[in-house]
């Protein structure tokens, strides 16, 4: 017994030592709510799993999903992000500047990018294998990204890490529960307990935006591995809380925002934390401008008490205030609720209600970007990218009013399928309605034109726009190509998609810095928000109608070709093997030995040929050289009349 005890103590000690030296596997779950100005609520689930580096921890994991670990090792992935999105992020009313918007607003469909730690000549092969693996893992047709016409290797505009980066997106991929289930399987508690048990499928798929993301970073293959693999799984949903008055009336803008609770949003509550999670937290974030607008009715901001504009059903455990706010007027506040010590007897159901009406607006991206198609018809068209200033860039102008010319740097990355043949030399830029020379605005541009059926066209561009501009537009003309008949997708008449362009603003770093109070524990989500990151925004997906053949055409073509061939070969053979003199001789010899029926037949045929019949015998040629003699006509009419009468009286 004592021996066993000592062994177990030793074992524990060894375990302890090893965990001390290389860190533990960790899993945290977090959920963030944020009221949005247009009466909706943003819910952002954030799950993070960490696996310590292999060289110190070994190959076996308790929490970390094996599938991902193997994926990372097999394809030597440094960084990878996969997102499934349904709906569009509304940059105008949900904001485009804060970390959540800029990292979780994704283009519709599937987007995948990955950085590999392999020699450059093996990157494409790794990418292809990766797409197939992910396709199997997530029940989605990510394998369509395998084709070299679907992905590209952006040099510098997409992310600063270049070289081994591959990027591809499938705008038409439909997202549903079949993609969510495998995603949930990567969590240690799946959706059986913890925050993920809130994910009631009907409610999360009936929202206005649904984006499920998987982000992977690993430094496994670095010489000095520190962090191991970090798997970050987020689900961002925008939901409309049910409110009694569905109809905003005339004075709708001054109405009370809808109150909500976890059970009203999801139809479920949290019974307790996931037992395997290190921490399980719920946050409510109020934006800076909202806090600012509430200030006059709010006496003491520092303490959440009953006299504020809003209330919680559960009192918050902690509060974090933003410091160094970009927005000069207000600072955002995060209220934290931990559900660590909750017991299953008392389900955790956070509710939030408003006491007074308030309006605010989110911090928008520096420019409002919209992309659209120009022109009509099946021959050609143009892609236009319109950039419009928002309040943000206006305030920027005020801030940087120090004489020298202020510039706004905008990076554009655009991938265009090969059947949209973009003529990059036709690029035109208009700033405030005036045409500008490209050299004045474009700082750097790299273009790789599309190659038919091989690679898509890629355009990367750095624009330097004057800060005081109101609107700028960039147009590119294109010709619509033709596809081979078996290259058309089943729903070819819908049109073809141009994936979203990515607009980023490297001059601006979004970062929310929170003053952490002493009681707060380390939260991966909050620390994620504190990271500096470039603001990204995606444009709309475009639909280009291409010329589509009539798909019953092959049949028609085969029929008509066969007819033409038959006619051609028939007449050719006829001309080749026919001997007129011989025929004549043959006929004459035949005529001599012809019977009465034969005589009649030859007579008739000669008449039909419109040629005076030469009688074989001494009978004189028939006087009528007409094609149809009156006799024949009368006979035909007679027969027709008899047939008709018979039908008429018999039927």
């Amino acid at each position: 017994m004592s021996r066993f005890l000592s062994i177990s103590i030793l074992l524990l000690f060894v375990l302890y030592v090893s965990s001390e030296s290389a860190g533990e596997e960790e899993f945290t779950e977090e959920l963030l709510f944020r009221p949005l100005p247009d009466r909706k609520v943003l819910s952002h689930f954030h799950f993070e799993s960490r696996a310590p580096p292999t060289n110190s921890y070994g190959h076996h994991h308790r929490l970390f999903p094996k599938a991902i670990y193997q994926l990372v090792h097999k394809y030597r992935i440094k960084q990878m992000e996969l997102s499934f999105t349904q709906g569009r992020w509304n940059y105008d009313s949900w904001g485009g500047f804060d970390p959540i918007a800029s990292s979780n607003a994704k283009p519709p469909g599937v987007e995948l990018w990955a950085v590999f730690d392999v020699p450059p000549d093996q990157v494409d092969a790794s990418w292809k294998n990766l797409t197939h693996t992910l396709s199997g893992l997530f029940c989605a047709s990510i394998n369509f990204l395998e084709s070299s016409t679907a992905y590209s290797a952006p040099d510098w505009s997409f992310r600063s890490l270049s070289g081994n980066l591959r990027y591809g997106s499938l705008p038409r991929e439909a997202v549903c529960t079949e993609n969510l289930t495998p995603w949930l399987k990567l969590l240690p508690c799946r959706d059986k307990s913890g925050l993920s048990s809130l994910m009631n499928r009907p409610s999360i798929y009936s929202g206005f935006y649904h984006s499920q993301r998987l982000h992977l970073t690993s430094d496994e293959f670095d010489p000095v591995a520190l962090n191991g693999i970090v798997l970050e799984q987020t689900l961002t949903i925008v939901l409309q809380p049910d409110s009694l008055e569905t109809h905003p009336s005339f004075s709708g803008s001054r109405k009370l925002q809808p109150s909500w609770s976890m059970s009203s949003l999801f139809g479920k509550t949290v019974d307790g934390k996931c037992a395997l999670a290190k921490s399980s937290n719920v946050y409510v974030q109020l934006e800076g401008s909202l806090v600012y607008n509430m200030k006059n009715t709010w006496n003491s901001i520092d303490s959440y008490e009953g006299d504020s504009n809003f209330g919680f059903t559960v009192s918050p455990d902690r509060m974090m205030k933003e410091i160094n706010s970009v927005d000069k007027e207000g600072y955002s506040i995060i209220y934290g609720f931990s559900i660590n010590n909750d017991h299953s007897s008392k389900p955790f159901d956070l509710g939030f209600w408003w006491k007074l009406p308030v309006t605010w607006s989110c911090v928008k991206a520096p420019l409002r970007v919209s992309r659209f198609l120009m022109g009509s018809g099946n021959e050609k068209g143009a892609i236009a990218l319109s950039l419009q200033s928002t309040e943000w860039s206006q305030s920027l102008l005020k801030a940087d009013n120090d004489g020298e010319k202020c510039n706004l740097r905008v990076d554009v990355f655009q991938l265009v399928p090969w059947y949209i043949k973009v003529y990059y030399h036709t690029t035109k830029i208009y700033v405030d309605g005036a045409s500008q020379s490209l050299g004045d605005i474009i700082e750097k541009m790299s273009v790789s034109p599309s190659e038919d059926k091989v690679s898509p066209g890629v355009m990367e561009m750095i624009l330097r726009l004057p800060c005081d501009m109101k609107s700028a537009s960039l147009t590119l003309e294109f010709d619509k190509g033709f596809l081979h008949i078996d290259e058309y997708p089943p729903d070819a008449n819908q049109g073809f998609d141009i994936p979203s362009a990515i607009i980023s603003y490297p001059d601006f770093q979004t970062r929310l810095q929170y003053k952490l109070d002493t009681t707060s524990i380390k939260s991966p989500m909050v620390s994620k928000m504190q990271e500096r990151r470039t603001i990204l925004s995606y444009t709309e997906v475009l639909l280009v109608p291409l010329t589509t053949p009539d798909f019953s055409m092959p049949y028609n073509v085969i029929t008509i070709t066969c007819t033409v061939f038959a006619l051609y070969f028939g007449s050719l053979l006829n001309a080749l093997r026919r001997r007129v003199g011989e025929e004549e001789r043959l006929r004459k010899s035949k005529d001599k030995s012809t019977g009465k029926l034969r005589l009649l037949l030859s007579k008739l045929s000669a008449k039909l040929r419109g040629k005076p019949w030469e009688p074989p015998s001494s009978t004189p040629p028939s006087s009528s050289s007409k094609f149809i003699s009156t006799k024949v006509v009368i006979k035909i009419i007679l027969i027709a009349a008899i047939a008709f009468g018979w039908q008429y009286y018999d039927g």
Partner: protein
Amino acid sequence: MASTPETEGQKPKHRPIVRIGIFIIAHSFIVSVVCCTAGVLALLLLPVLAKKTYVSENALMPGSAIPMITDQDVSGANNFINELTSLNSKSQSLNIEIPRLIALHMANLGGEVSYHMFQNQPNKFHPLHFFTSTDTEANNVNQTCESYATNTVGIIRAPRGDGKECIVLVTPYNPVNLSPNETLSLGIAYSVFSLLTQVSWLAKDIIWLAADSQHGQYNSVAAWLKDYHTPSFGGSGKLHDDECHISNDIIATEVSDTLRRAGTMAAALVIKVTNTGEAGEQDALNIYAEASNGQMPNLDLINVVSYLAVHGQGLRVQVDKLVSLLDSTWLKFIGEVFETVGKIARSVNPQWKFGISVKEYVEGSATLVSSLYNQALGVPTGSHGAFRDYQVDAITMEISPKLLSNSKGRQTELLFRGGRLVEGVIRSVNNLLEKFHQSFFLYLLTSSNKFVSVGVYMIAFLLLVAPLPVLAASLFSDTIKSYVKSEKNEPFKSWRWLYPTKTVFLVYLWGAIVSLLPYFIYQIPDSQPTSRLLIWASLSLFILIVLGSFFRARSAEWALLKSVTVSSAFVGLCLMSVINFATAEIGALLLVPMCLMTKPWRVAGKVQSALNLVLVIIGFPGATFFVVKSVFGFENGSSLVEFWYWVESLWAWNSATYIYICMVHIPCWVLCIYILLHPC
């Protein structure tokens, strides 16, 4: 090849197809008579041959969902109508107040609102960009803010859609003189919009365009579409004066002045309400579909609308028809003939479903004639025509209530009906994954649920046109024969046909010049339509004489000249049938008998000359216009002025019919007269 006479005893044997050709050419007279009669007969038979429409695209599934429009939506629409009416009676600056009110309501419903301001672009004749879209030149004369019209555009973003496609609802209204009908149509759109902001099944975005039609209904929609599809980024096209913009002081919320977009358009519906005053037992729905140059929207769109209107809302669906034809006795007579033939056919074999009742036939042909005329004219029948220029299927739905009483209940009922109908159509189109492509684009309607497809109506035209090449060949071969007979010593010159061709070419050149003349006539300031018309006519005549005297055409043999004329008419008609079938059909009805019959009066008999004269007189476009007008009884205004306006509308709408008349019809007519007066 076929024409070389075969005088030798042993004729070389021809291939059967060549022999058939020779035979047909030899009997060209019978062939012409038979073909022409058959062509006209086939045209008369079209209402009988019309098929029932059917929804071809399965995805549309019209009427499969229960209408969701609620009392709340309709009461909101009622309030909106009341506000509009009260504003209309009170306010002064209506062309600012009404768009603002509409924008406010759109924003309150949850739409994304933007204004689109545009100036009236007067239709000018640009001979050089006839088929191309005219680029707006910088003709921004410093105009006042009153000259700007404001379209209000509300967009609903489909909650879970990807925003690649959209459906457009258009309600034209005139803010300066807002009629109750226009407020009703705005109310219908409001109720639909209010519903669609809340539904979860939207896959395509919805655009509600409240089109300011003070510069014309078509122009407002066309201006918006132009800015939607081909915006001019240059400064000249933009509005730079800020004071013209509507100030957003009431609604501080987002009403943007930049045009908001929502992807590729899948379909467009123009909603109108009229008060025809005719008392029927049902509310009626008129469908207008003809766009420029006889282009039609996909038949499926019309099918869905008429299916939902008839089966869902119990509306009586009508297509535009020529009312004066309904009482014509000769049409009734033909109908009776067809009916008896159909009866006999059915008694012979009950499975032969041939023949329709007289009433049906007369109505069918009245609709068919109107459909043919509208397509032939090439002028769109409503603001839906603007969409067709961008390959968007669009129709106008004109709801005419049986009796527009001012009672509240009646209005609510109408809002419900219209709203449900529009909702159903939008729901069907929303189901559509692909664009409309399944059903017909080339068709003529004989009633709202019967159509004649291209495969059927083409036969009539082909039969009409077929005698032309036969006659040309026959005339040519006859001339050669007679030439060979008369002067055997001189070898036949095969290029003899070149002399008449030169004449024909000159006349066609003249036709081209005539078609360009209006551009120069417009340069003359302050002229009356009548004087313009006279100047045009006299200038044309003068040019014809000048051309004739300069290039003194050798007086060719009339037969050869006729042969070339006939073949050129054939080519012209065939070309036109590709561009606008209906024009070619009507043109063939006029041209073919004239071309076939014409003969120098010295050669022809008295009867034939008289007939020729009648045909030639009727064949002149102006004369045709007046004859048709007097027959069908449209009488308004001075006829010359009216004719000028008619022609003006043709080129203002870029109708290919204008080109056809000037470059095919009139030259042929001139050549026919030339042949008629030929001094042999």
